[in-house]
C-alpha cells in the first residue's frame, strides 16, 4: 500500500520534473525506491541510524545494490536537494555535475552542482558498507575479489557474514576457495551462530586443529569475569579467597561495586590524620608520638568515634565482610555450554601446542647446540689432543668473524663473500694459531696452568687490538638473501634458514673432523702422538709438526665458527668472550678427548640453556646463571664429562 503510494508520488514527481535536466532519471526503479525508503537516514548519514539502511540494501537482492554500496562508499553518491532522489555524480567543469542513474549507472546528463548534495559517509559508515559489501564480493566472478573478501572477513568478521558466506559456498567453483570458505563458515558458526548446539558442533568439528584463527575464535568464548554476589549464580565457577584471589583484591572488588566501605590504607589514614591536626595535637594526642602504626590507628579510632572520619576498616572487618560474599568467575563470551565446549577444545589445543612447542624448543636448543659445537670443536681439539687450554680461542672466533666482515667490505655480493670468507677465515686463524703455537704454547707443554695464563695474555691483547682497529661498535656480517626467512612447519614451529645452515655447517665439521682423524695420515699421526708422544716420535712422527698442525686446525675451525656466529649475531671485539665459557662448559661436560663427547656436551648445554630460558623467558641472564650452576653440579657426578676415558689413558 505504502509502496503503491510512493510509486504514485514518484510518477507524479517524474511528470513534474520532466523539464528538469535530470529528466531522464527513473524515479521508480526498485533500487531508487529502496533508497527513498531510507532517504532521511541516508541523507543524515549518522553511524547510529544508518545500519538498517545498509542492511536493507545488502539484503535486498537487487542487482544494483552492490554498485550503489560501492559508489556510496566511494563518496560518489549525491542527492537532489529538492526531491531527495539519489544519483551517482561526477564533478564536471564549471560547477556542474555529471549525473548517472543509480539503477543501471547510465549517464543521464549534467546539472548544476549546487542543487545536489554529496553524501560523505564517515569512516565508520564506510566500514559498515565495506562489511556489507563483502557478501557481494564473495560471489564476485573474479576469484581475486572473492579471495580478498574472505581475507576481509577473516580479519574482521561480523554476524551478518555468516549467512552470506553459507550462501556462497555452494556456488563456489574454485576448490581451494571453496575449502577456505567452508572453514571460515565453521569459524563464523562458532562465533555467531544462534543455536548453541550448532556452535558446539562446529567447535567439536575442529578437533585436532591448532591454528591461530581457531584459537582467536575460541578465546573470546571462554572469557570470564570475576564477580561477586551473595550466593553463587548458576553456571558460575566459585573462586576461593586466599587461593585464586587475594583478600585485598577481593575486597577491592567489593569496594568497587559499593558493597563495602573502602579499606583504610596507611596513606588514607595518614591523610585523614593530617587533616585533623589541631595545633600539635590530634584528638588530644601529641602529634610527635604518632611514629608507629599502632599509635596512628588508635588516634584514628578516636577520631572515628567522634565521627570526624569514616570508621576504621580493620583486617577483621575485611575478613568478616568477605565471608558474606561468594566470588566467582562467570563466562561472559558465550552461553555456558558453548563456553565449556570451547574450553575443552582449547585445553585440547593447548596440550597439542605444548607438544609442538616442545619440538620447537628442541629445535631451538639444537641450533644453539650447533653453535656451541662449532665454537667448542676447535677447543676440544686443542684441549683433548694436546692438553692445552687456549683462552684465546674466543678471540680466534672473533678474528674469523672480522675476517668475514672485511671480506664483505671488498666483495659486495653476499653469497660470494660468505663463500670466500669461510676459507679465508680458516686461513687467517690457522695462521694465527700456528704462530701462537710456535711462539708461546710449545714452550709450555705440560704446564697447563701456565698455558692457560699465557694464552689469556694473548687473548686480552688480541681483544684490545681488535678494538683499536675496528672500534667498539658492532659490525654487521650480512647473510646472503637466500638465508633470510625461515622454514615454517606449523603455526608454532619455524626455524630460520640461518640456523639450519649453521646446523648443517656443524654436521659438515663433525664429518670433516671424523674424516681427518680416522681416515688421513695426519689423523693417524695425531692420534698416535696423543696416546704416546715418545713412541710416536720414535716412529718418525715429528711431534712438533703434529702439535703445530693440530693447533692450527683447531684455531682454523674457530675462525669458521666465527663467520657462522657473526651471521646471526653482531661482530664485536668482545664476541669471543661471550662464547668462551660456554665452549669450555661444552668441552668439560662432554668429556675431553672425544668428538662425540663434545657433540653431546654441546647438545646438553644448548638444550639446557633453551629449556631454562623457556621456563623463565623474561630473563636470559638468569638462564645462563642457572645453567652454569647446573654444570658445576654436573661436574660433581661426572667429573670427567659425559664420555669419560677410563683407566690409564684418562690419567696420562
Amino acid at each position, binding site marked *: 500500500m505504502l509502496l503503491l503510494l510512493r510509486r504514485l508520488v514518484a510518477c507524479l514527481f517524474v511528470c513534474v520534473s520532466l523539464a528538469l535536466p535530470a529528466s531522464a532519471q527513473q524515479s521508480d526503479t526498485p533500487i531508487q525506491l529502496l533508497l527513498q525508503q531510507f532517504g532521511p537516514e541516508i541523507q543524515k548519514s549518522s553511524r547510529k541510524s544508518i545500519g538498517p539502511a545498509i542492511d536493507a540494501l545488502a539484503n535486498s537482492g537487487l542487482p544494483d545494490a552492490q554498485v550503489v554500496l560501492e559508489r556510496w562508499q566511494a563518496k560518489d553518491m549525491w542527492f537532489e536537494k529538492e526531491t531527495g532522489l539519489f544519483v551517482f555524480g561526477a564533478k564536471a567543469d564549471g560547477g556542474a555535475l555529471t549525473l548517472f542513474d543509480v539503477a543501471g549507472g547510465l549517464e543521464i546528463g549534467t546539472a548544476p552542482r549546487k542543487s545536489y548534495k554529496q553524501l560523505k559517509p564517515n569512516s565508520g559508515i564506510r566500514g559498515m558498507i565495506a562489511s556489507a559489501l563483502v557478501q557481494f564480493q564473495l560471489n564476485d566472478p573474479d576469484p581475486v575479489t572473492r579471495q580478498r573478501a574472505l581475507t576481509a572477513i577473516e580479519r574482521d568478521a561480523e554476524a551478518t557474514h555468516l549467512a552470506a558466506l553459507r550462501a556462497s559456498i555452494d556456488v563456489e567453483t574454485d576448490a581451494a576457495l571453496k575449502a577456505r570458505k567452508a572453514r571460515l563458515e565453521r569459524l563464523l558458526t562458532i562465533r555467531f551462530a544462534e543455536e548453541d548446539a550448532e556452535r558446539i558442533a562446529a567447535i567439536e568439528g575442529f578437533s585436532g586443529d591448532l591454528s591461530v584463527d581457531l584459537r582467536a575464535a575460541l578465546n573470546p568464548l571462554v572469557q570470564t569475569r570475576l564477580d561477586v554476589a551473595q550466593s553463587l549464580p548458576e553456571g558460575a565457577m566459585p573462586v576461593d579467597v586466599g587461593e585464586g584471589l587475594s583478600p585485598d583484591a577481593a575486597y577491592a572488588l567489593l569496594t568497587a561495586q559499593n558493597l563495602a566501605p573502602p579499606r583504610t590504607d596507611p596513606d588514607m589514614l595518614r591523610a585523614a590524620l593530617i587533616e585533623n591536626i589541631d595545633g600539635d595535637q590530634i584528638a588530644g594526642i601529641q602529634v610527635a608520638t604518632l611514629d608507629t602504626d599502632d599509635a596512628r590507628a588508635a588516634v584514628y579510632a578516636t577520631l572515628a568515634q567522634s565521627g570526624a572520619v569514616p570508621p576504621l576498616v580493620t583486617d577483621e572487618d575485611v575478613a568478616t565482610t568477605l565471608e558474606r560474599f561468594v566470588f566467582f568467575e562467570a563466562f561472559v563470551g558465550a552461553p555456558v555450554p558453548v563456553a565449556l565446549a570451547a574450553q575443552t577444545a582449547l585445553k585440547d589445543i593447548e596440550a597439542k601446542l605444548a607438544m609442538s612447542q616442545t619440538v620447537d624448543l628442541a629445535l631451538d636448543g639444537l641450533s644453539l647446540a650447533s653453535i656451541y659445537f662449532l665454537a667448542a670443536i676447535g677447543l676440544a681439539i686443542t684441549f683433548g689432543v694436546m692438553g692445552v687450554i687456549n683462552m684465546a680461542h674466543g678471540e680466534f672466533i672473533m678474528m674469523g668473524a672480522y675476517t668475514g666482515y672485511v671480506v664483505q667490505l671488498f666483495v659486495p655480493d653476499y653469497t660470494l663473500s660468505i663463500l670466500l670468507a669461510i676459507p679465508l677465515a680458516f686461513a687467517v686463524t690457522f695462521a694465527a694459531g700456528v704462530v701462537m703455537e710456535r711462539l708461546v704454547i710449545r714452550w709450555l707443554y705440560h704446564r697447563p696452568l701456565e698455558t692457560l695464563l699465557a694464552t689469556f695474555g694473548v687473548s686480552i691483547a688480541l681483544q684490545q687490538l681488535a678494538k683499536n682497529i675496528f672500534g667498539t661498535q658492532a659490525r654487521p656480517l650480512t647473510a646472503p638473501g637466500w638465508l633470510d626467512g625461515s622454514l615454517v612447519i606449523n603455526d608454532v614451529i619455524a626455524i630460520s634458514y640461518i640456523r639450519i645452515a649453521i646446523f648443517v655447517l656443524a654436521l659438515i665439521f663433525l664429518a670433516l673432523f671424523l674424516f681427518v682423524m680416522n681416515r688421513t695420515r695426519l689423523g693417524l699421526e695425531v692420534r698416535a702422538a696423543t696416546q704416546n708422544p715418545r713412541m710416536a716420535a720414535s716412529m718418525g712422527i715429528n711431534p712438533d709438526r703434529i702439535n703445530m698442525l693440530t693447533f692450527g686446525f683447531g684455531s682454523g675451525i674457530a675462525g669458521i665458527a666465527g663467520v657462522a656466529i657473526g651471521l646471526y649475531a653482531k661482530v664485536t671485539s668482545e664476541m669471543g668472550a661471550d662464547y668462551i665459557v660456554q665452549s669450555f662448559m661444552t668441552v668439560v661436560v662432554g668429556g675431553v678427548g672425544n668428538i662425540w663427547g663434545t657433540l653431546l656436551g654441546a647438545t646438553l648445554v644448548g638444550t639446557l640453556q633453551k629449556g631454562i630460558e623457556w621456563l623463565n623467558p623474561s630473563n636470559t641472564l638468569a638462564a645462563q646463571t642457572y645453567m652454569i650452576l647446573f654444570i658445576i653440579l654436573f661436574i660433581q657426578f661426572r667429573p670427567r664429562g659425559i664420555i669419560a*676415558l*677410563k*683407566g*690409564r689413558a684418562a690419567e696420562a
Partner: protein
Amino acid sequence: MSTLLEVSGVSVSFDGFKAINNLSFQIGEAEMRAVIGPNGAGKTTFMDIITGKTRPNDGRVIWGEKSVSLLSMSESQIAQAGIGRKFQRPTVFEDQSVADNLMLALKKKRGPLAVLRFRASEADRAAVADLAEQIGLAAALHRKSGELSHGQKQWLEIGMLLAQEPRLLLVDEPAAGMTAAEREHTTALLVEAAKTRAVVVVEHDMEFVRRLGCKVTVLHEGSVLAEGSLDHVTADEKVIEVYLGR
C-alpha cells in the same frame, strides 16, 4: 700368624680389559712377600686397589684385626690406617728439603688444624735425624730433595715410608735404576723393616728377589699363577711358560 691383609675375589676392568681377574692374596703381620710377574700382569693395579686409588668392580679387601673393609675408605684414610706405599718412580717433594720430606711423613696427626699448630719437638727432630741415618742421608738432611741422586731419592722415599710407621709396606720396584751397592743397602733396609711389619715388594729383578729370601707370589693376567718359595715358583711349568714364552 694372624692375617693382616686379605684380598679375595677382586676383579677390576678398564673399558672391558680385565686388569685384575678374581685375585686373592693374603699376608700376615711381620711377613715379607715378593710379587713378581711379567709386564701387564696387574702388579701396579693390585697396589692401586689396596691403597684405594682404584676401586675394584668385585671382591673384598679386608684389613687388620677388626677386619675393616678398605673399599669404602679414601686413600688418605687407608694410609692413616697403616698402609704405606712407595711408588715405582721416586716421588719425593723435590722443592723441599730432605728433613721436611721426612717431617711430612712422620707419624703425627694429619688434620689441617693440628698441622697448622704443629711445631716440631726435640723428639720429632731426633726421629728425623735417626731416619736419615738409617737411609744414609744424614749428611744431606738440609739439601733440597730435588738435588739428590736417583738412588738417594729412592731411599728418601723408603725413609718417608718408614717414618709413617705403617703396618704394611707396599714397595714398587725399589731397586730399579740402582747400582749394586745401593741395591744391597735397599735390601738391608727392607729386610730390617720386615722384622716388625708386613712388606710387599713388587720386583722384576729375580736376583733382588732371591736376596730378599721370602715367599713369592707370581701374578699373570690379573690373577695369582703360583705362590711359594722362589725355587718352587721358578720350577713351576706355568711360570716358565709365562716368563720365557712358548
